[in-house]
């Protein structure tokens, strides 16, 4: 062990190593499992499933990225460059789709665009009774659903980049005689590229690792295939091969984004004393903008939310609001609380030591913990599952396995708010407390903890909310009969019992709203 070289090993150091082990061990085991697989299995997968799955996954990611680019950048442009009645409301409203898990949106669209659904009926009254529309269970159906759900990532990043955009670039282009269109295409958009690419990277990671929408809309991607290998065929080895492929794919996307960002690190686009001057719109212009924004938000949030509410109020839905339903609520809350608490306890030492003693070991441990970022839910579940089956088989089917998978999966979410809050406080504050006679423990309790409290709370809440809507890992690892709200939505929606799924879905959306408030308050401050 590396720690032996140190004179004494602090409990904190041990916690950090344990945290990193928690992440590394399952991953390592899954990799080993995949690599030790028989060549015949590899061959079978390469010749049958993999080409199709790769093509499906990559083309879906590409199409969604394209659509979110158009939606995200244009909406961000509208709310940052124009002034019209209700602009502030739209500005906030554009984030709402993030509160809707993909499987909820997918199931609503399954109904809306489905066979005999309202949109088809409407279309048939216009175009004749034989007219068909695109099926939700197709490439384009999945693309639309995923794009409507994820475009706010691009919107948020583009918006804050536009708000801090240095107008001198556009002004100097004007003094060079450039027209508005020319300025937008050759000055503003190229300079926004780093932010847009970062937003698209988030979208692509989200799409690649999504399970909810593709499973409900029956679109074969790598993530869905991992799930199917585990459940349908119970072939964990094939699943682990697909998982490795999936992780490599996600890493490739991530590295591409890093490369883009490195290339454009000299883009000093912010600065300067002025905020952008919004163009005041006449009523015609304002109506057009409002119509555009209303359509986007209506499709991504308004109509689905309306349907969920009406379904929840229907007699069928009211009938299931019994003790069993509240049992699901309790299960969800319990799992989320445990996962959030465990996540904070694992994440805090990692973030703290990496910031205070940035040795290669501590920083390495922290980086390892971010691996969950490229682990889709089914992969995290698979990794934890195979490890526990091998090492501690008697724990299989307990909540503990589930919590470990959640921590592995959502640790990055927590670290993203823990890390900055720890980096913000200068070590001098702790040092001055020591010179004033406080012990290490007292310093922690009276100086460090109060200062990072907000970061810890945010991390806890974010992990809580993510767990609340988590679907694939819960499906794969839950104890028998232990259903959560997300599971109920998925099970009922799979059977097309739209009304029965609605109360759980609505509850998940409502609980998800506070996460948006946190996200916004951080983003708004940064902008």
């Amino acid at each position: 062990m590396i720690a032996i070289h140190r004179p004494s090993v602090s409990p904190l150091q041990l916690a950090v190593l344990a945290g990193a082990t928690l992440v590394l061990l399952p991953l390592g085991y899954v990799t080993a499992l995949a690599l030790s697989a028989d060549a015949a299995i590899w061959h079978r997968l390469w010749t049958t499933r993999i080409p199709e799955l790769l093509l499906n996954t990559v083309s879906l990611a590409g199409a969604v990225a394209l659509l979110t680019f158009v939606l995200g950048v244009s909406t961000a442009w509208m709310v940052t460059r124009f002034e019209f009645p209700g602009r502030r409301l739209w500005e906030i409203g554009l984030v709402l789709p993030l509160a809707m898990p993909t499987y909820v949106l997918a199931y609503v669209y399954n109904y809306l665009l489905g066979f005999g659904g309202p949109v088809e009926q409407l279309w048939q009254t216009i175009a004749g009774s034989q007219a068909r529309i695109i099926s939700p269970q197709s490439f384009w159906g999945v693309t639309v659903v995923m794009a409507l759900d994820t475009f706010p990532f691009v919107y948020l990043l583009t918006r804050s980049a536009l708000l801090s955009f240095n107008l001198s670039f556009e002004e100097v282009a004007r003094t060079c005689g450039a027209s508005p269109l020319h300025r937008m295409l050759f000055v503003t958009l190229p300079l926004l590229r780093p932010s847009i690419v970062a937003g698209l990277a988030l979208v692509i990671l989200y799409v690649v690792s999504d399970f909810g929408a593709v499973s409900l809309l029956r679109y074969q991607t790598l993530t869905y295939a991992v799930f199917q290998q585990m459940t349908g065929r119970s072939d964990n080895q094939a699943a682990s091969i697909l998982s490795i492929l999936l992780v490599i794919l996600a890493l490739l996307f991530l590295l591409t984004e890093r490369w883009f960002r490195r290339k454009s690190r000299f883009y000093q686009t912010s600065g300067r004393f002025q905020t952008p001057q919004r163009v005041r719109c006449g009523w015609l212009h304002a109506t057009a903008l409002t119509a555009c924004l209303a359509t986007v938000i209506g499709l991504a949030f308004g109509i689905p939310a309306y349907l969920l509410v009406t379904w929840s109020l229907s007699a069928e839905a009211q009938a299931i609001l019994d003790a069993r339903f509240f049992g699901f609520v309790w299960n969800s809350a319990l799992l989320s609380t445990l996962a959030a608490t465990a996540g904070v306890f694992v994440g805090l030492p990692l973030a703290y030591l990496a910031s205070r003693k940035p040795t290669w070991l501590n920083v390495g441990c922290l980086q390892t913990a971010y691996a969950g970022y490229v682990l889709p839910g089914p992969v995290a579940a698979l990794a934890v599952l195979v490890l526990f089956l091998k090492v501690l088989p008697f724990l299989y089917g307990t909540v503990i396995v589930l919590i470990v998978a959640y921590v592995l999966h959502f640790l990055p979410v927590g670290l993203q708010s823990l890390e900055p809050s720890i980096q913000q406080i200068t070590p001098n504050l702790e040092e001055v407390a020591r010179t004033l006679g406080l012990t290490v423990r007292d310093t922690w309790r009276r100086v460090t903890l109060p200062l990072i409290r907000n970061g810890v709370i945010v991390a806890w809440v974010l992990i809580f909310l993510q767990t609340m809507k988590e679907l694939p890992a819960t499906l794969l690892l839950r104890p028998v009969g232990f259903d959560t709200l997300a599971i109920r939505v998925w099970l009922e929606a799979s059977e097309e019992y739209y009304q029965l799924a609605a109360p759980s879905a609505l509850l998940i959306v409502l609980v998800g709203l506070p996460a948006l408030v946190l996200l916004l308050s951080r983003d708004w401050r940064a902008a």
Partner: protein
Amino acid sequence: MNTPSHSTQVDIEQLDGQVNLYQPASSILELRSVSCAYDLSRPAIHDISFSAREGEILCLLGPSGCGKTTILRAIAGLEPVQAGQIFLSGRLVSSSSETLPTEARRVGMVFQEYALFPHLRVADNIAFGLRHLSRAERRCRVQDMLRLTGLEGLDRRYPHELSGGQQQRVALSRALVQHPVLLLLDEPFSNLDPDMAGRMRQELHALLHRMKTTTILVTHDHDEAFAMADRIAVLNQGMLEQLDSPELIYHLPATRFVADFVGQADFITGQVRQGLVHTELGEFPNTLNRPEESEVVVMIRPDDIQLVPNKSAKPRVAARLFRGSENLYTIRLPSGQMVHSSESSTNVYEEGTAVELRVSATHTVVFPAEQPPRSQQRDKSDT
């Protein structure tokens, strides 16, 4: 506002002799009673009128927040005007009702932080405004510009690969390559270290005179304004205090603000008796024509006072500031008033040395003692 009143005194003719300030032969730029006060975050300007003649360098000088950048932006069309008109080459470009968009004005502008497009190479940055030309013509123009500004061989670089001085030259080239009617420079030297700023100042001055480009330069540094400008407009709190040649601005400031802003100045109180201003430093002509017994102040610059050690004199050396090329002495007069004197670098007197003051101002500038803020008073005469 402050059109300088003509003085008949000989040395003013000398200060100001070579150019006729009052009948612009052909004015490239004219501002008529321009006011801007739209945005509270930006300094407002009130009733600004001036014009710039073809080929001259006109400098807008003032402290930060005085509105000089707002004027520049209004000229570029980046800021709407609330009242008044702006004319470019005799054509109305800005008024309260109409604004010709910046891209149609043919002005070149260099921003304080240069605003070089980070995603374009040097050559593409410079060629940005030349889209209407053919590729060959564009390249030719860019190469000419690179040669003129000493940037040969750097055309394939990206802005972040250049030094501060080179970046500034690129920004300047990008503005000049379009042959603008008017060049606008916003604090162009403030991001350079002092050595580089000095060199760039000389180069730019030579270049602008060679190209005969009419230029409006904004700065808060009076040395820069003196070095670059044919004429200087001093601004304070959105108003034009004085518009004159650098020499007149320095020697015959129109207001106490100008006197103080463009160089070190002491203000000695005095009283008018028998047609002369009596002060601790002696008598001065009553150039203000104030009535008998009224209180006035006389402006004295450090280079107007010469020190002669004299054991029986009352004033004492209170402090010495060594500035390399000179010594700046602070002298305490018997009344407690402090005045400054610049002496040659080698004249070193200890603190407390009794010195006699010899005042040899070439012209006396007198202000009323209780000067109302922003007085339009202006009077001057030679001693």
